[in-house]
């Protein structure tokens, strides 16, 4: 997917921008800003998300999760806006943004703990239907939903866990379920917030394969702490530092950026 990224060096010398050809941009932000009291968590961020894996990295407190919350309607920006497929979505509630095709997972595993693994995904598949408001038919009558659910479960490797109560799943598989719930909404863009955090090395490999597979079909925005993972999987990287975009570009370039090295070394 790296071919979709067309590098252009800006001659101003201050920042280097890597424009994605305009048609490929699915989500963008303009001067996005969010304050929490005296703290400016996100400060004038301009993002352009295109195909492939676009990672957002930065030290703790850089504003990565706040950015996701702004993109998905869990927070409203103080100024600036978010556009998705040419439509302004900032200010819309989270469910409306989901209905337009933006899916997300959460940094802290967010599943329906007391429901079965199957039901976790099934209810997410069902969310695309008006029939969700129907209280006089049996949920079993939505056969297409059940078929799609089985398909999603095998995509995320949970086909043998369908009847397990979600809270009893091993942690690594809960992370897969979280991603599966997101995929079940038939999205055209997926935002994943640290999908490998706290996961064993073996499960991490599985999750990375899953992300790679997803990114072949859909653009993925990834928040990730592990630099090695980010460098290997990303087509594009944005480095956030104290709410500001510090650097942006393909992995090789970001890796060699002095300011990035400084921020990371200084940040820890």
């Amino acid at each position, binding site marked *: 997917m790296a071919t979709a990224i067309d590098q252009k060096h800006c001659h101003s010398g201050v920042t280097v921008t890597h424009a994605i050809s305009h048609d490929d941009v699915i989500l963008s932000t303009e001067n996005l800003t969010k304050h929490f009291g005296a703290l400016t968590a996100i400060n004038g961020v301009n993002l352009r998300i295109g195909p492939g894996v676009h990672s957002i990295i930065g030290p703790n407190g850089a504003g990565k999760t706040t950015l996701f919350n702004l993109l998905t309607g869990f927070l409203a920006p103080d100024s600036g806006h978010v556009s998705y497929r040419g439509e302004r979505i900032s200010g819309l509630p989270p*469910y409306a943004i989901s209905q337009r095709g933006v899916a997300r997972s959460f940094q802290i595993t967010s599943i*329906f703990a007391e429901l079965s693994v199957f039901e976790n995904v*099934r*209810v997410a598949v069902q*969310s695309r239907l008006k029939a969700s408001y129907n209280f*006089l038919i049996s949920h079993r009558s939505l056969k297409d939903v059940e078929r799609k659910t089985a398909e999603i479960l095998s995509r995320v490797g949970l086909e043998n866990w369908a009847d397990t109560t979600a809270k009893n799943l091993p942690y690594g598989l809960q992370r897969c379920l979280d991603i599966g719930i997101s995929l079940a909404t038939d999205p055209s863009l997926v935002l994943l917030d640290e999908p490998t955090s706290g996961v064993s090395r073996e499960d991490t490999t599985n999750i990375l394969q899953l992300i790679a597979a997803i990114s072949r079909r859909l653009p993925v925005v990834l928040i990730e702490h592990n630099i090695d993972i980010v460098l290997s999987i990303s087509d594009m990287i944005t480095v956030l530092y104290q709410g500001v975009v510090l650097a942006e570009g393909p992995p090789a370039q970001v890796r060699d950026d002095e300011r990035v090295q400084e921020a990371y070394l200084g940040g820890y």
Partner: protein
Amino acid sequence: MTENTSSRSRAILIGALLAMAVLFPHIAPYQALASEVLIFALFAVSYDLVLGYAGMLSFGHAAFFGLGAYGTGIFLVKMYPSVPLGLLTGLAVSTLAALFVGYASIRRRGIYFTMVTLAFAQMFYFIAFKWTGLTGGDDGLQGVPRPQLGPLDLGPEINLYYFVLVLVAVSVALIFRVVNSPFGKTLQALRENHNRAMSIGYDVDRFRLIAFIISGFFSGLAGGLYALLLHFVPLSALHWSTSGEVVVMSITGGMGTLVGPILGAVAIILLRDVISNYTESWNLVMGAIFMAAVLGFRGGIMGLLKWRR
């Protein structure tokens, strides 16, 4: 097939329950008590939709029960002696009230939601208390008739019991359908995880409001039947302690199961009747049983039954 055996065992269970319900008034200490048990079972099941399935602790459900009772009673006393029209009036009043209270409270979460529902219920209570001309105030609404329903004379307690049984059975069947519908499944998801439900595209507040209205509707039917049963609407139908009672029934029986609240209602109404024969402070004994349910057997009577298996 497991599905066949489970649906067959379910059919047997339902058959057994219905047979028991048919025999119940002949075993119960007196026939009116049997009707009261059924009415509170319906109230508890309607309440469970909100507490057990949508995860909303309403402390104002006396409003819908009481308004259903007053709506039915006032229509029968002051307007026209027809049971179906009376019940429909009660349903309309309680459903509208649920729409109104739900709309005003649904955006609040946790304890704030609980307090807002309580505040509205208290408001209805004081309106009924003050508006003596319409409601009879503190004395309650006296002289609710039980007019003939086609060929059926609702006068004898046993006839009223079977009339109540039919309505309660149909209502409980409908509520079972609701919780197993796509809508009901969505309710359970948003009970489990509000943010996740929103992030997969569910307008959570709208689902909560619809659940609240459906619950208010069936609570109102229970109230209407209560007015018929007593020939009278006591002001206590709107009192906050009635809201408390339905919470206790749901939790003692096992919330989120529908069958649990039915068992809770049966157990509490019958026990109260038995214990009040021996002591005036039956509330103390009921309180102890409730505490045991909360501390000792989480999941209520249903939890105990499952655990034993």
